[in-house]
């Protein structure tokens, strides 16, 4: 399990624009760099990030080898109802991680 820092507001008023910020520990190895022995290290990146809010996708991103290690993503959505925000990272070598956060909308 990769270490993550996630910032989803615990509560919000209906209709508010909320900011969700995520930071995940990942090497994002490009697949172009040689190691100390001169061999090219195989690519190992996060390829896709998806965020769903109450089952509906509110944000997704395709990540490429040009993106730095430990990718930070920040995006906004509108608080509609109390529920869970689910964030999924998928990548090379079967990398998959899902984190959920509850949000209360009043």
């Amino acid at each position, binding site marked *: 399990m990769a270490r993550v820092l996630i910032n989803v507001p615990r509560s919000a008023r209906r209709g508010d624009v909320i900011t969700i910020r995520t*930071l995940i520990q990942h090497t994002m190895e490009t697949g172009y760099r040689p190691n100390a022995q001169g061999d090219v290290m195989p690519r190992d990146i996060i390829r896709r990030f998806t965020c769903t809010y109450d089952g509906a996708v509110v944000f997704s991103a395709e990540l490429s080898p040009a993106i730095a290690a430990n990718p930070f993503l920040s995006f906004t959505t509108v608080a509609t109802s109390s529920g869970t925000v689910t964030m999924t990272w998928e990548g090379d070598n079967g990398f998959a991680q899902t984190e959920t956060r509850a949000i209360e909308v009043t």
Partner: protein
Amino acid sequence: MKRLLALLLLALPASAQDRRSGFEDMARETQAMQRDDMQNPGMLWVAEGEDRFNRDCTACHSEASMRGVAARYPAWDEATGAPIDLAGRISACVERHQRVAPPARESQPLLALTAYVAHQSRGLPISRPSDPRLAPALEQGRALYGERRGQLDLSCVQCHDDNAGRRLAGSTIPQAHPTGYPLYRLEWQGVGSLQRRLRGCMTGVRSEPFAYGAAEYVALELFLNDRAAGMLLETPAVRP
């Protein structure tokens, strides 16, 4: 008395009067990255260190007791009769008290623990090494700082005192105050120690770097802390 004081001030190098952390020379975006714990990737290492600390270290230590520790390292180590830096102290503690193989220098567990412990001192001023037994190492550090090294025949002084604030290729030459170690360096794409940074400068002037954990690094670190005494710790800092 006043004249003596004025003379003393004149005798000090320029950097001692007007010291600035590398933070102030960074791009605004990189500064924002360091300021916001949510964006600062170094906090991932701190979080890992916190988990390790709570699992392995709380039998003897508490989080509160770690406050201010990083500000007074390198310190004198009674057991070996030599100065020791914070990372060395942590691995020695693992070896002596937990009786397991100590984590390697620059390994993820050691960097994480060191980052966590140093993070507890964020905002505290670096204290001047005052233990008289540290004096020889401090002098050795001062000598190393002024010694020309490598094929390029450069000493630390020539860049970081004489030309600090000017540019080396595209980058501003910092004054080399170790205020935020271990820090997240964008170039490294990860967290690294001050020794790794010193190693970078040494290979940069094409000299043979010392091995990790060498007494020379601890001496240099001691001198740099003496030079930066009073400046505030920023761990985990972000640098370009």
